């Protein structure tokens, strides 16, 4: 598909909007449907579209495997880290109330951080799985 002008142009046009939608789903999950999991998948779709249209080599060049692996573990670590921080601040594991003076603010911060962790992990997982699957020798 590397030499198809229409595919390339349409993909270029759509990618920023898909990226924006992923961010919207990630950070607006408190109010509307969505959250880290869905946002991570949508973010991964941007890379898959890029890889399909511009070739897997270019996509791998944009996001090296080492960074993906780091992000994969970092998301889970962020989630568990929030739990550890709440423990050190005197609460129970993943009890966000202690994160701020106002319990509702603490909840907001805690949910934001863990959803971010989920989003990072899921996006990295989906991109990694796609890269590994489509990078196989026939």
């Amino acid at each position, binding site marked *: 598909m590397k030499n198809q002008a229409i595919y390339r142009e349409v993909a270029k046009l759509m990618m920023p909007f898909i990226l924006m939608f992923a961010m919207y789903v990630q950070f607006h999950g408190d109010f509307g449907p969505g959250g880290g999991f*869905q946002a991570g998948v949508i973010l991964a*779709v941007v890379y898959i579209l890029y890889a399909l249209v511009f070739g897997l080599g270019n996509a791998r060049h944009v996001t090296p495997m080492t960074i993906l692996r780091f992000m994969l573990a970092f998301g889970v670590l962020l*989630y568990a880290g929030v739990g550890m921080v709440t423990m050190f601040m005197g609460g129970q*594991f*993943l009890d966000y109330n202690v994160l701020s003076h106002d319990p509702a603010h603490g*909840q907001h911060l805690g949910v934001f951080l863990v959803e971010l962790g989920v989003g990072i992990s899921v996006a990295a997982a989906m991109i990694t799985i*796609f890269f590994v699957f489509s990078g*196989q020798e*026939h």
Partner: protein
Amino acid sequence: MEMMFNVILLIMLLLTAIGLVRKRSLFAVVMLSGIYSLLSATLFIALDAVDVAFTEAAVGAGISTVLMLGTLALTTRDEEETPPKGGILPLLVVMVTGSALLYATIDMPNFGDPMAPIHHFMAPHYVEHSGVETGIPNIVTSVLASYRGYDTMGETTVILTATIGILAILGRGRKRPKKLPHRKANTP
């Protein structure tokens, strides 16, 4: 009206499932399973479960289809013809399991029954207090990330573990396997 919509969707789901079983072309099977996911997502929207529908559409119809197509490109596009095997035992097992499942549905509460046990355990607490306790308007998010934070952490860990497994099995795929010394150079 809503009843009719649900019935039509369920019939379409059933037809897609029958098509899935009967098709020999694996490309058609992958496409049909994508359609099946999209139909389920529509059904979830009809049941007012927007978050679940979102996930189903993104993961079931989107990513899974792409990954399945990638797998097809690696393996083969057609299912091998297997001669049909007779036998009374498989039929018996299927009949017994099916009737047990049907028998179990008798005990289930009616569709949309407000007196069902699931609506009387924790759900009223979440509906009434989650807005005040967490300050998050979307109850699904507050349950997922706050009340059931352990579960979601476990799920994320499952995704991490699954990806590590895939990397362990397929991660070295781009490098050519080392040629064994006693083989000729041109053997694959």
